């Protein structure tokens, strides 16, 4: 109950700030129009106008909400104007990229744990890979793959995996190294093999770390996919929707796409959270 109250208060404050910002930022257009029509704008006229412009600098919340409603519920799912259609395109690439990125992160982390050469060499490259701006590298991946005839889902998923493997790699290295000396000594007293130590101790120890990293990773996957959709000529996907919005000054459409992306991210993170809860519960690690 207290938590709900806190959340509602924060949302209320944001909405109030948003509406007042909308008045301020859209006022110039309203004033210009009034001056052209040679009419005096009262304050209530100003407010009414700034909250209902067709191409506002900052759309008011209810405009974004209406656009969201209109482009999800009111449109056919296969329509080019449906956010569900575009969201699905983005989601496909996100999920594929996330799965590939997570597997890559796990494989690399196991290599780092067991192969000394990898331990010394992989991490600096992984860190370097994340310091390169994704906006710079994404178009190159798209162009290069396009030149060999690969387009659509795969290039986007690669960019998405490129972003999501890293948190999984870092988390899994930490998780696989979580067992302390005493735990490893205990296994030694049983003459346990390396695979016993891996499957019975290291892997289960790393599960909580894996889920925490996957929550970061799936959000990064979505960002990667959207970035990957920007340079594709802007045809399909939430990223494309953002780009066409900006081409034609459709700010309301852009904000609606942004919110759709945010909701999608929240949903995906929540799903990973649910999986985490049920797996940890099954393992007896939730009290």
């Amino acid at each position, binding site marked *: 109950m207290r938590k709900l109250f806190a959340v509602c208060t924060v949302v209320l404050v944001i909405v109030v700030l948003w509406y007042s910002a909308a008045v301020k930022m859209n006022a110039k257009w309203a004033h210009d129009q009034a001056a052209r029509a040679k009419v005096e704008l009262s304050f209530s006229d100003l407010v009414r106008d700034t909250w209902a412009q067709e191409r506002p600098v900052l759309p008011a919340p209810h405009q974004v909400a209406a656009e969201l409603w209109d482009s999800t519920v009111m449109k056919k799912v296969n329509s080019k104007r449906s956010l569900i259609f575009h969201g699905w395109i983005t989601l496909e690439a996100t999920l594929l990229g996330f799965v590939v990125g997570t597997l890559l992160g796990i494989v690399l982390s196991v290599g780092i744990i067991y192969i000394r050469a990898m331990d010394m060499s992989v991490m600096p490259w992984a860190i370097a890979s994340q310091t390169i701006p994704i906006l710079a590298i994404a178009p190159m991946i798209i162009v290069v793959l396009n030149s060999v005839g690969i387009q659509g889902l795969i290039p986007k998923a690669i960019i998405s995996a490129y972003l999501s493997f890293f948190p999984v790699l870092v988390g899994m290295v930490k998780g696989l190294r979580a067992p302390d000396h*005493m*735990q490893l*000594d*205990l*296994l*030694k*007293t*049983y*003459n*346990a*093999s390396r695979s*016993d130590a891996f499957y*019975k*101790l290291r892997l*289960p120890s790393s*599960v909580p770390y894996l889920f925490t990293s996957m929550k970061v990773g799936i959000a990064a996957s979505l960002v990667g996919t959207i970035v990957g959709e920007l340079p594709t000529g802007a045809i399909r996907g939430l990223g494309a929707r953002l780009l066409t919005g900006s081409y034609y000054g459709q700010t309301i459409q852009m904000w609606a796409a942004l919110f759709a992306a945010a909701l999608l991210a929240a949903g995906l993170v929540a799903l990973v959270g649910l999986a985490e809860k049920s797996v940890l519960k099954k*393992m*007896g*690690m939730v*009290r």
Partner: protein
Amino acid sequence: MMHSDFHVVSAKDLCLTFQTNDGPVHALKDVNLQIDKGDFVSFIGPSGCGKTTFLRAIAALENPTSGELMVNGTTPELARKDRAYGYVFQAAGLYPWRTIARNIKLPLEIMGFTKAEQKERVERVLKLVDLEGFGNKFPWQLSGGMQQRASIARALSFDADILLMDEPFGALDEIVRDHLNEQLLKLWSSTGKTIGFVTHSIPEAVYLSTKIVVMSPRPGRITDVIESTLPKERPLSIRDSQDFIDIAHRVREGLRAGHGDGAADA
């Protein structure tokens, strides 16, 4: 050499030096000791006296620098492969994702016991440490003392003849500790195991042991070996007897002498 066959553990001029950044640390120097079958041997001394190192050397978790160490008449590594000992650490170290029963099954799975055998053994050792009915609980559902008992059960599950215990009750409060000491004695006399037990506590060492090894640091060495004159049957009240007080006194003297040497070295 010939005689080492008859000792469960036999150390001759055993030295163990750790190379550290601050130069070599002599964890053990010229240690000579025999442990016979059925002995309950306590190692007592201040930190850095090498008591844990000696126990770990018996378990082949550390490699001696020089000297000879035999376990069951063979090398510590081979003894380990023969499942000669179960090791109990200071922390219970149970896997939080396994129930108590499955924790006890861990060594059995690794050693390749059949499912039926695993089940039978888990039940037997749970009974041995008085944890019947707790097999399906997770570690966090048990108190610290019960967790440590579960870890002892785990060490007993594969029928090793030697039980090596490194301050197993060090983190527990005195009342729980007394109770576990009593139980451990019962377990020892009913199973006839040979026990090596590292402790900081003089009363614990005197109450439990047939042989008390007093050690001192820098370099880690044995300063006194006391054969206990207490009977095998030991109620808690034995701690008020004159014999007990005399032995405890001798241990204390040994520790003080060792500590004096250490201080002089430093």
